[in-house]
């Protein structure tokens, strides 16, 4: 199997085929046109384009931040060239239905395709990924006319899309947004307000940009229930699909970031009268679905985006780990404890146990993260195409449960893998002569955007584990128990028992937290809960992987088993103290006051 510093094709093959058995999906009607052969071919093409067109300008895009000249965003030309190849290969449309020009690629394979680009160049790949999420939302919730107007040009890569939620004063708290949408006689709306942190909010890469904007229409209740969703194109679209007047949405400024520098990040002003479509100021917007239900629709996009963010974090961690591994095998320094004779040649640093410790930690994080992301994507396929309704419901519930973990766990631990990759490189890792510092800076965004770590923690403990009377948590427990039952009688029985115990404790802690009556106390330590639950889930997926290696020999499988043991012996023991802290209903943080700092 060929090797790569971007991702491991061998690991992807193992996870997709030997573990998740994705070929079985081709028995379902939606995926009947596909086969192992087409899956392999699209992944190989993704690898090729990611390696040849995306990875080579990753550093250059980082060193040449987007800037504005005469009101227009200037990017290095390689970004547009790479995105053209991406679109021409049909990648943007891959998962869309056939009638919209797509290939109905299973979500799990599509996610594996994406992670090649995320690992190769997260900044450039953000543009089409936001576009795909935008198009998927429209397919799910917009009118057939709106879909016909906006989706095919996005699927072809001629237009890009954004999601415009946050405002300068309101990000995590969307209830406080102030952008207003006033209905017009012709059924359209006029929007006024400012949107902050809008990735890909402006650029000259495509002829049009389709913003999906949250705003408040008159008559709605206060808070998140009064938010509606609007399509606001940069250029209005005529009936024949051609571009018309310039809409009243303008770039107010670019944000200068620590990483992800190839992606423009913008402050956008809507309705300030810079342009006057139809002879008057106000950004023309078109309502998606019903009024006041915008956030529900947006969550459709955000759930997908959250799994995508987790995969991006995994991709960045994975490439960092592979670079560290390559460096450690090549770089010589020092001698082993058993042979200190200075006359002997120095050894590659991978011969030092502490370097292997860092690499093994990195391996357990990035391969665990990849398993988590692909498992969730496989659930998306189950949710869409499983044979009976009950199975589809199960997949939906489990996916709801796992989404905050799929977003946060890789954002934390695959970032840690990049941190370790720098450490393995030593002083060189801290210089800009090696790429690992960029991977770390890029990855540092992932615990922040698409719902911070803290927001995910509240989502998991405050919503997901209590929804439907705790059905999600029960389902997760049952699913893990099915795996641990398979482990009984194998060399992995002890890991199975360890997980059974932790799942039981997690359930008990959840009951304690919600049983004491004060939601403030229950949620004060939610991020610890998220981390503990995340480690249990990834520990379970390591058991799944270990079981999938049973009866197979060779370095690859032995390495998988060793990483599973590492996770069992070094990582899972971290969970017990976290659960104990939660069970104690500790209020140290809750009681702390601003003045006491």
């Amino acid at each position, binding site marked *: 199997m060929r090797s790569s510093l971007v991702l491991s094709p061998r690991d992807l093959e193992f996870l997709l085929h030997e573990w998740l058995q994705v070929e079985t999906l081709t028995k379902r009607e939606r995926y009947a046109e596909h086969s192992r052969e087409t899956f392999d071919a699209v992944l190989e*093409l993704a690898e090729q384009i990611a390696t040849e067109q995306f990875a080579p300008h990753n550093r250059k895009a980082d060193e040449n931040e987007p800037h504005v000249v005469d009101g227009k965003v200037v990017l290095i030309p390689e970004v547009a060239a790479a995105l053209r190849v991406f679109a*021409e290969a049909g990648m943007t449309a891959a998962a869309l239905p056939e009638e919209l020009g797509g290939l109905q690629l299973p979500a799990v394979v599509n996610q594996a395709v994406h992670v090649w680009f995320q690992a190769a160049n997260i900044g450039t790949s953000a543009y089409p990924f936001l576009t795909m999420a935008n198009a998927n939302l429209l397919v799910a919730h917009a009118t057939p006319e709106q879909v016909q107007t906006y989706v095919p040009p996005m699927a072809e890569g001629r237009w890009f899309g954004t999601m415009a939620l946050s405002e300068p004063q309101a990000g995590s708290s969307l209830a406080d947004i102030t952008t207003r949408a006033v209905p017009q006689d012709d059924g359209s709306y006029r929007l006024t307000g400012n949107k902050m942190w809008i990735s890909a909010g402006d650029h000259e890469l495509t002829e049009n940009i389709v913003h999906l904007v949250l705003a408040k229409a008159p008559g709605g209740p206060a808070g998140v229930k009064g938010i509606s969703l609007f399509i606001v194109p940069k250029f209005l679209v005529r009936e024949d699909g051609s571009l018309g007047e310039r809409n009243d949405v303008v770039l107010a400024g670019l944000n200068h970031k620590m990483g992800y520098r190839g992606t423009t990040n913008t402050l956008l002003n809507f309705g300030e009268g810079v342009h006057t479509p139809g002879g008057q100021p106000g950004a023309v917007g078109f309502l998606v679905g019903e009024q006041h239900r915008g956030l529900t629709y947006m969550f459709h996009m955000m759930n997908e985006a959250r799994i995508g963010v987790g995969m991006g974090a995994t991709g960045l961690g994975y490439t960092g780990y592979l670079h560290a591994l390559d460096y450690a095998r090549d770089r010589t320094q020092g001698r082993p404890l058993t042979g200190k004779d200075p006359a002997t040649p120095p050894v590659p640093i991978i011969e030092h146990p502490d370097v292997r410790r860092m690499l093994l930690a990195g391996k357990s994080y990035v391969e665990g993260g990849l398993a988590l992301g692909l498992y969730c994507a496989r659930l998306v396929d189950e949710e869409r195409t499983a044979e009976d309704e009950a199975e589809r419901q199960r997949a939906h519930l489990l996916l709801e449960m796992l989404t905050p973990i799929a977003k946060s766990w890789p954002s934390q631990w695959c970032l840690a893998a990049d941190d370790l990759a720098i450490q393995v490189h030593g002083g060189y890792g801290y210089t800009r002569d090696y790429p690992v510092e960029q991977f770390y800076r890029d990855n540092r965004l992932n615990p922040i955007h698409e719902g911070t770590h803290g927001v995910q923690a509240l989502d998991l403990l405050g919503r997901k584990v209590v929804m439907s009377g705790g059905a999600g948590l029960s389902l997760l427990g049952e699913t893990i128990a099915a795996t641990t039952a398979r482990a009984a009688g194998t060399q992995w029985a002890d890991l199975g028992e360890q997980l059974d115990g932790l799942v039981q404790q997690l359930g008990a802690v959840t009951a304690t937290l919600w049983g004491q009556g004060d939601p403030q106390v229950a949620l004060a330590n939610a991020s610890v809960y998220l981390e503990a639950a995340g480690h249990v889930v990834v520990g379970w997926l390591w058991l799944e992987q270990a079981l999938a290696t049973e009866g197979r020999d060779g370095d690859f499988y032995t390495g998988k088993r060793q990483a599973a043991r590492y996770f069992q012996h070094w990582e899972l023991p971290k969970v017990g103290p976290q659960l104990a802290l939660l069970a104690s209903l500790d209020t140290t943080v809750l009681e702390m006051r601003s003045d006491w700092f």
Partner: protein
Amino acid sequence: MNIVVLVKQVPDSGSERKLDPSDNTVARATADNVINEMDEYAIEEALTVKEAQGGEVTVLTVGPDTATDAIRKALSMGADKAVHVSDPAIHGSCAVQTSAVIAAALSQLEYDLVLCGAESTDGQVSVMPALLSERLGIPQLSGARKLTIEGSMAKIERQTDGGYWEVEAPLPAIVSTWDTINEPRYPSFKGIMAAKKKPVETKTLADLGIDASTVGLATATSKVVDFAGRPPKGEGVKVADEGDGADKLVGYLAAQKIV
């Protein structure tokens, strides 16, 4: 315009390549096999000619069953159909024997133009166009960096060390291409799906009317009799800079005939 492109599956030149010590042939079973890189330029050129002039592009390969991957790649780039000659007796054939197989397969096809890469990255003997030219009695235009088809004539710029020669020949002709001729397209997802449905005809030596005893390692006109790996890197030379570092470096480079 009927165009046949000769493609070969080879071990990836970017990964470790080995000879099988049991018979000194290329170890294909354990290698990461890909379409010969140089052939992608021939495919691209065929597709370009077809797009300008119409016609059909057929891919022809001789190789084990696993060579279907190379065929699929060519079809996903846009070729219309393929012929795959696969027969265990061909294993270990030399270039002369292989040319007899390809010539027989070509004789069963209609073609105006045969395109191939200037060399394969495994054997690198680069004689196939000449051998086929002789066997089929058609002109060869080798080493093209540019190809133009005008009526019934093919005209190329043959790349040379110092520049190029302009050479032309009547069709049908065989043209080999260098990597300077174009930039091969990537396949597309749609192309990958379409490739599944394109016809691939598999032929054996018997189908081509070739006596199996005339091909294969036993009767090959040339064989690898021995091989050795590249010697390991030496210790290198350390130059201590005592104010004369530059002189020492230049002296070293001169001794190595680098400057």
